[in-house]
């Protein structure tokens, strides 16, 4: 089924209206030498029932948080999402619309994005936010590009404790530009303010610190950003987790100028890593340098509140090569999802979610640390993820847990996390979804393999 609707009889009538005898003239602009005259080598067309069968079958060949207990984090977290979000987001009026270019025909999306911007700005503790970027890593890269652009400087300091993929993407994004990327080494799983200070100079455009960082550790944002600000104009970029922001001091509270992060924890399905949604907030002075769509509140011809895309002169379709970013299609539906999620959870719900993450993670960390042979790798404060050094290679532990249908965590030693950890390190994340019984079951597995 190719979802076309024009019948052969209608096609004939339409060709007649066009004045063409058949379809060939309509493709006449393609020189015969360039025509593809074969059959594309694709599987035979599938009916909907066959699609249902084959996709169910393919999905059945996957195992993960849907049929196992998940302690994996590493930048993507298994949070609760209320069903109403899943159902509202499927409404065709949202699903099948595009970027709200025409304000009067798109007030629904525009108002929701305006709500999103406000919610993100508040979670970041900053003045303004955009209507989404692709995902966390590119959001960080865009933040750095904005800082370079605003300051005209050529040096970027990034904590080595950034999520491995975020660092990797940042490297890619800066690689063809006349810019130096300096990694700030960590000490005990965190970057010391003194380290920032030691690396600062007048050409430093930005200092990028993530908290919770790749180890789950809470960084000293205030200290690091104070150090950054010792050179006027340097942009302090906080990479943040929106759930943590509901409990802990936010980027803006700690002196950040720009905050970027992954919005996946806000009701977005894990979905093997995407589509997710990039969060981007900043202080007011960056308004005209922001990447991505911005929705503004205005009035209509009769003075009624109205919303529209604004400051489009920053964007590629107006400014071309001088645009603040090349982004066009962003992650609209995920931003809507996050908006609905934040509204549904609300002020106390988000706070409670964050608190539960914190308390549960600390319960599990406490129990594991008490096991013979296991120790927390770092001793700094953490939110909902922590690293454990195990008495044997973590691959053995992960395999043993799998047999109990538990995803014990992530091995930061592996390629997928940039190979940052030791072979016995295990990164464990705990969300509000985990129960005490599930945590105790993991402890049992570890205990059996311990000593």
């Amino acid at each position, binding site marked *: 089924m*190719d979802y076309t609707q024009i019948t052969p009889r209608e096609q004939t009538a339409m*060709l007649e209206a066009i004045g063409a005898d058949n*379809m060939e003239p309509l493709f006449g602009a*393609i020189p015969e*030498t*360039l*025509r593809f005259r074969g059959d*594309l080598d694709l599987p035979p067309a599938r009916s909907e029932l066959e*699609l249902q069968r084959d996709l*169910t079958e393919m*999905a*059945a060949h996957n*195992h993960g948080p*849907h049929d196992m207990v*998940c302690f994996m984090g590493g930048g993507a977290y298994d949070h609760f999402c209320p069903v109403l979000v899943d159902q*509202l987001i*499927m409404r*065709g009026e949202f*699903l*099948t619309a595009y970027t*709200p270019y*025409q304000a*009067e025909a*798109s*007030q629904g999306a525009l108002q*929701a994005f305006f709500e999103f911007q*406000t919610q993100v700005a*508040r979670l970041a503790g900053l*003045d*303004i936010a955009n209507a989404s970027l*692709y995902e966390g890593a590119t959001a960080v890269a865009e933040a750095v590009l904005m800082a370079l652009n605003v300051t005209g400087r050529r040096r970027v300091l990034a904590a080595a404790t950034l999520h491995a*993929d975020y660092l990797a*993407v940042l490297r890619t*994004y800066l*690689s*063809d530009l006349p810019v130096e990327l300096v990694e700030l080494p960590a000490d005990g799983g965190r970057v010391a303010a003194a380290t920032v200070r030691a690396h600062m100079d007048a050409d430093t455009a930005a200092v990028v610190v993530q908290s919770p960082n790749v180890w789950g550790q809470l960084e000293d944002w205030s200290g690091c950003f104070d150090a950054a600000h010792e050179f006027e104009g340097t942009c302090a970029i906080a990479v943040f987790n929106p759930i943590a922001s*509901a409990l802990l001091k936010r980027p803006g509270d700690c002196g950040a100028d720009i905050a970027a992060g992954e919005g996946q924890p806000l009701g977005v399905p*894990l979905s*093997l890593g995407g589509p997710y949604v990039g969060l981007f907030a900043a202080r007011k002075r960056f308004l005209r340098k922001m990447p991505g769509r*911005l929705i503004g*509140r205005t009035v209509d*011809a009769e003075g009624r509140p109205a919303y*529209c895309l604004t400051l489009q002169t920053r964007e590629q*379709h107006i*400014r*071309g090569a*001088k*645009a603040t970013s090349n*982004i*066009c*299609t962003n992650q*609209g539906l995920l931003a809507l999802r996050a908006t*609905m999620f934040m*509204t*549904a959870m*609300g*002020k106390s719900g988000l*706070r409670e979610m964050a608190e539960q993450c914190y*308390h549960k993670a600390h319960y599990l960390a406490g129990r594991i640390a008490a096991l013979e042979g296991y120790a927390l790798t770092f001793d700094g404060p953490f939110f909902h993820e922590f690293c454990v050094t195990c008495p044997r290679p973590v691959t053995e532990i992960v395999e043993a847990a799998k047999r109990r249908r538990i995803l014990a965590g*992530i091995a930061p030693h592996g390629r997928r996390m940039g190979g940052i950890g030791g072979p016995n390190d295990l990164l464990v994340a705990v969300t509000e979804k985990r129960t005490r019984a599930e945590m105790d079951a993991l402890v049992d597995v570890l205990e059996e393999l311990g000593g």
Partner: protein
Amino acid sequence: MTSVMGAGPTPMNRPPQHGAPTQGERPVEPLVFEKSVPGQRGVDLPPLDVPRADLPDGLVGEPVAMPELGQHDVMAHYTHLSHRNFSVDANFYPLGSCTMKHNPRVNEWAAALPGFAQLHPLLDDEQIQGALRLLYETRCFLQEISGFDEASLQPAAGAHGEYTALKVIRAFFRHHDQEQRRIVLAPDTAHGTNPASCTMCGANVVAVRTQDGYTDLDDLRRLIDEHGPRNIAALMITNPNTSGLFDSKVGEAADIVHEAGAKLYLDGANMNAILGKTRPADFGADVMHFNTHKTFSTPHGCGGPGAGPIACRAEFSPFLPVPQVMMADDGSFYLDRDRAQSIGKVRSFIGQFGVYVRCWAYISACGADGLTNVAEKAVLSANYLAARLADVYEMPWFDPAAGRYCAHEFVTVPRRLLDKGVTLNDIAKRMIDYGVHPPTMHWPVHDCLMVEPTETESKRTLDHFVEVMLRIAEEIERDPESLGEAPSDAPIRRADEVAAARNPVIVWEA
């Protein structure tokens, strides 16, 4: 509309109405922040089943001022917002260059299957063999459709695909000791993302003139000469181009570019017009991106998510971003993360997986014949609309009598109507009153509408659109000033975009 028009395809979804119409007032939907009532909450959580731990000294903040609404009001709020939005489901949405086709719901069902939607991105390859098969097959599909040897599913959208591909091209040249190739040529009608992507990877973009809607090959030659063939990295074209025309001379353009040692990049936004009819690799392109949200019907979602996979000749393979999905000799699938010459990562994890589930389902539903039929019906529909409207809405590049057809979309510059004293915006806003989403405006040329009906609309819908456009033309003849009032039957009257930009309010402050 009269019964003939009313019998049209998107006749009316006038919904539950609110407000006091006799007073001519139009209701306003307050923001969630305005509706907020302290103490309300939409959803609860289980009681905490572990002891409370001490909170870290000095790191704890105040609860964030999120909205406080009960569950029913949350449902009502977003239901109301949905009623204030045009969509493909409810409206004809001929937004040129965006391919707003029907979005099959079986694809949504598939992406929401727990065995797809709940996969953590760092699971071991052996735990996600079904997902990796889907990605691998999608990669193969795209290679076959484009005629290329390789494809990468990493990029998150078309613009990101452009960026990624340009990085790959630069890496290729660096590897071949031609790092000086920093200039990218692109027609002056290029989509804004093309030059913007160049800038982001440190390339300099130079505009090539277009003439009669086509890239001017003389200007292309001239510019190559002017900047020196050895400094040219690539020519970025769109074909069918952004004027809705297939460029017959694309082969020649490819030759010119290749002669200079540069690469031909194809912006595949308009692939819908040529599926199964011609393949980018066959007409000389070296690298391209697809927009799955255009060509392969992954929903546009108010502006994403999409995906911008790239396809290319084998010579670029070593430089593609990581990870790459591969099939092993034993038929199992894996993610190759170790590619020494790779440009590295362009986003976290492994891409817009959920989007590819829909993409796979769409291509699998169509099959080879279906995809070809998609192109045929898309082109047929655009030419039909153009033919029926050309007398009233002038089309600079459409002249069937002279054998000049459009591809899947057409451009009109309705000069005669504009000369009556209306603006293009007036026409667009009036379309909203008729339930039609306005086409793309002022691109690729000023004062134009770019109309792309796609292949999934019925003839009934197309005919309805023709009637609407003719009716608007009549209204302009009769009373051009009235159009300045449009829209008169939308949730708001015309939005003041100038005020929005002059005094930007980007977040709500009570």
